[in-house]
């Protein structure tokens, strides 16, 4: 299976976007950074014990599924929406939801628009080949208003068109909108409209049928979430591993039970992931949180205990 | 033969060139050319390569412009006036070394093109004239072929017929036989001789000395852009005066 392949290769091939600041983009030194990237690294740390043993494969909307289906990449961690047809028809398995998103609209403030329903006749920039494009068509059809789509290939192009005024509205996942707006000269001149027109659960995915590998990715993600819930951070994980009273923390960090072996990994797997990448909240905060230029609030992505949707199954 | 030819020369001036000079850039090609051609005269021009023979006759129908002196053809002064140029060109026919037939037109169309578009002759009439001249050069049966389908000699004869269709009063030939195989030279020269016998005014650059002896009234020898010597053919060949002429003739006849 893929797990053995990855171990043998000593490297994880992980598909990411070609560049979306905050989620996955190379920095000036060519280092990949971002939320999706951290998920890849966590898996690499868990499986291979080395968070840098990842080969990032940039994919576009068009190439991502072929890359995964043909085995060019082991997992895809690329702001990809979990939909029925992708799961069932295209034969992929989503390993969970890493980020709960929804599609939104951004317009320049001076247009004076306050609701998406007022967008009749507007020109809308949208990335082609995404679910966004389909949701957009559905939304306008449902509200019986017209629009003119301007298809763009990448987020950067959408930004270019939008800034130049070639389109009135830019639509993409709300997180993407925030990230894009953050890059503007005057972010305050643009508003994100209140309507969120779709559910966009984004998460890593793997090939259908390779359940062992799917489990590894799924539980690595769950480990990050659970770590936050249990208060395990990159700073205290070492300390917690050596002595903890909480049995669940002990199971998570491999000091108790055989969870690692069941996955086909060693006992320290989750500890390494958390150690190198931090728990979910740390990853969120360093890449897209309110302190970063992207400035996203936790919102839906808060723990269930804080009124959010993050709810990891128990480690038992 | 020379006798028969001489009989037809009249007093009427066909071409009169005076103190004509031409430069290519700073290169002085033609120097102080003085030449008077009478109606019905047949003149052969010879001389070493690069001596300006072609340039001279190309100046006469304004394919090249001259920079000093005057050229008058049939009483019309060659100036930059387009009307005069048109008038002169429609009275002067010219045959080139490489025939320059129009390859996309049939032989007949080659011959009728200019009469129809320049002389405004009705097509039917133009075709009759063309057939007449094609018969004269002995290839009426090729009328509907294309130039590419004819031999070199036939092509050159068509070129002559094409010029004749404009009923020119003067014909210029620039080495009409030098691109031809030996067998074909004769058929073209025969056509030219026939033309000469009918009294056409002709200026012919050629190295065919047999032809010169047979039809020319006058042979002109050019060198370095100047007319070095001119004389009747017999005198010219048997008794050249200038040392340069002597040298040239010894080369050409010895060959």
């Amino acid at each position, binding site marked *: 299976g893929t797990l053995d392949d990855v171990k043998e290769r000593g490297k994880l091939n992980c598909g990411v976007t070609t560049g979306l600041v905050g989620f996955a983009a190379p920095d000036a030194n060519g280092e990949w950074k971002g939320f999706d990237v951290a998920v890849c690294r966590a898996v690499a740390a868990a499986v291979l014990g080395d968070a840098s043993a990842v080969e990032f494969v940039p994919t576009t909307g*068009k190439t991502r*599924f*072929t890359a995964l289906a043909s085995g060019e990449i082991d997992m895809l961690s690329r702001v990809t929406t979990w939909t029925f047809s992708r799961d069932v028809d*295209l*034969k992929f398995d989503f390993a969970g939801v890493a980020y709960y998103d929804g599609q939104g609209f951004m317009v320049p403030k*001076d*247009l004076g628009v306050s609701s998406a329903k007022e967008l*009749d*006749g*507007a*020109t809308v920039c949208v990335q*082609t*080949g995404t679910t966004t*494009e*389909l949701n957009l*068509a559905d939304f*306008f*059809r449902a509200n019986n208003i017209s*629009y*003119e*789509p301007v*298809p763009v*290939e990448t987020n950067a192009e959408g930004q*270019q*068109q939008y800034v*130049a*005024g*070639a*389109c009135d509205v830019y639509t993409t996942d709300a997180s993407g909108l925030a990230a894009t707006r953050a890059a503007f000269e005057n972010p305050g001149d643009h508003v994100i409209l209140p309507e969120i027109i779709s559910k966009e659960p984004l998460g890593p995915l793997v090939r*259908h049928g390779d359940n062992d590998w799917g489990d590894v990715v799924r539980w690595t993600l769950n480990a990050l979430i659970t770590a936050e819930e249990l208060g395990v951070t990159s700073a205290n994980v070492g300390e917690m591993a050596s002595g903890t009273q909480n049995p669940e923390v002990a199971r998570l960090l491999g000091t108790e039970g055989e969870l690692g072996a069941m996955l086909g990994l060693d006992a320290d797997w989750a500890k390494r992931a958390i150690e190198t990448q931090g728990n979910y909240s740390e990853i969120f905060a360093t890449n897209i949180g309110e302190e970063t230029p992207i400035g996203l609030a936790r919102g839906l992505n808060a723990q269930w205990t804080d009124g959010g949707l993050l709810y990891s199954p128990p480690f038992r | 033969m020379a006798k028969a030819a001489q009989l037809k020369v009249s007093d009427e001036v066909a071409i009169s060139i005076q103190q004509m000079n031409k430069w290519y850039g700073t290169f002085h090609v033609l120097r102080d050319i003085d030449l008077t051609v009478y109606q019905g005269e047949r003149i052969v021009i010879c001389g070493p390569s690069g001596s300006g023979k072609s340039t001279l006759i190309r100046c006469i*129908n304004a*394919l090249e412009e001259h920079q000093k002196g005057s050229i008058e053809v049939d009483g019309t002064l060659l100036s930059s006036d387009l009307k005069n140029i*048109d008038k002169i*060109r429609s009275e002067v*026919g010219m045959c*080139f070394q490489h025939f*320059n*037939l*129009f*390859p*996309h037109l049939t032989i007949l169309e080659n011959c009728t*093109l*200019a009469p*129809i*578009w*320049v002389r*405004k*002759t*009705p*097509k039917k*009439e133009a075709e009759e004239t063309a057939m007449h001249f094609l018969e004269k050069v002995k290839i009426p049966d090729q009328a509907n*072929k*294309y130039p*590419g*389908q*004819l031999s070199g000699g036939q092509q050159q004869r068509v*070129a002559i017929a*094409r*010029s004749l269709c*404009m009923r020119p009063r003067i014909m210029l030939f620039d080495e009409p036989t030098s691109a031809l195989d030996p067998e074909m030279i004769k058929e073209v020269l025969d056509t030219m001789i026939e033309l000469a016998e009918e009294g056409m005014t002709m200026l012919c650059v050629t190295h065919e000395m047999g032809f010169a002896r047979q039809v020319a009234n006058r042979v002109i020898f050019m060198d370095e852009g100047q007319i070095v010597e001119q004389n009747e053919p017999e005198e010219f060949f048997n008794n050249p005066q200038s040392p340069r002429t002597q040298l040239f003739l010894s080369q050409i006849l010895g060959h």
Partner: protein
Amino acid sequence: MTTLTDPPGSTFRLSMLLNDTRYRSTTLQVIAFILLMSAIFYLYSNLATNLREAGLNISFAFLGTPAGYDINQTLIEYTSQSSNLRAAFVGILNTLLVAFLACIMATIFGVIAGVLRLSKNWLVRKLMAVYVEIFRNIPVLIWILIIYALMTIASPSPRAFRGDDATASMILDGAAITNRGVYVPGPFFTRGIGGEDGSVINWLLVIAVLIGSFVVTRMVTARANATQEATGVRPNTLWTNLAIWFVPIIVLLFILGLAWDIPELKGFNFSGGLKVGAPLIALWFALSIYTGAFIAENVRAGIQAVSKGQTEAAAALGLRPGRVMSLVVLPQALRVIVPPLISQYLNITKNSSLAILVGYADITATLGGITLNQTGRAIECVLLLMAFYLAASLIISAVMNVYNNSMKLKER
């Protein structure tokens, strides 16, 4: 070889398969065939295994399902509920449209530049040489990007036309150049047949009249030819032809009550009038100006291929320069120019596939782009895409061959 001289009764030996001209080529072909078949089989079995492992299959059923996305420029009716097949057709028509427009424009650019490259004017000659070299030696992809950026960044957005402190204004109060496209007044009929909202009949009528004018002018030309043949003098047909072209159509348009729908800034965009989208313009212009540089070279080579002797011979016959051009030089030059010209048209058609760079909805962007993405049917989409381009190329080259054969100069 069918030589009948082989020794009678010579028996077949295995070495003859390679050493005997009778069998040699068959042997080699059989070997080649076996190699080809095993290569195909190898690739096919890999494909089958891979698809089976991924749990996929090859099926074209997705063509019938609703596409789900909208297209900003459609020549036929299309909504997001139309099928993927229809989206593909929209793409095909858009490809053909931009290819057709670009072929025309590129020819115009190319002919002008090619002729000017032979101009007597030194400055113009050099300028055209610069144009040709610059455009030929930079990838068309860069040109498309540059010209699209010019369109979207350098021209004003509709917003700039709005308000009192508008930074842009409409040309002659009728046309607007914006970064979303060019808006020009659109004609419509106030007294049109079949209701005011411009039924197709009116436009068919206009086209019919134009075709009529065309036919009549051809007749006038034929008459002029006949007159010339009979009398030698060619009647001047310029004014007659102009009248035939303009009078009937003006009368018809007047009767139908032609009026102009002036584009107006309403809401987010200009509305009314005719809109030519920025992607189309950018692609159209970029392809034209790039290919125009190549065509210019063809045109120049074609004209130069007509030897100087031809022009001189025509001039010596007394033909005026204009006539020399039209009767002698052009007919010959065209034979040289047209074949490479058509292969340039082929290139335009193929290069139009770069439409995805500017968001123009051609076949590569619809079938090979969005449909492929949304359905994940990569193999099927790419195969269909290649089939379309192949068919287009084959048709164009077939036309070219017919033309070439009919125009060949007759030779001995």
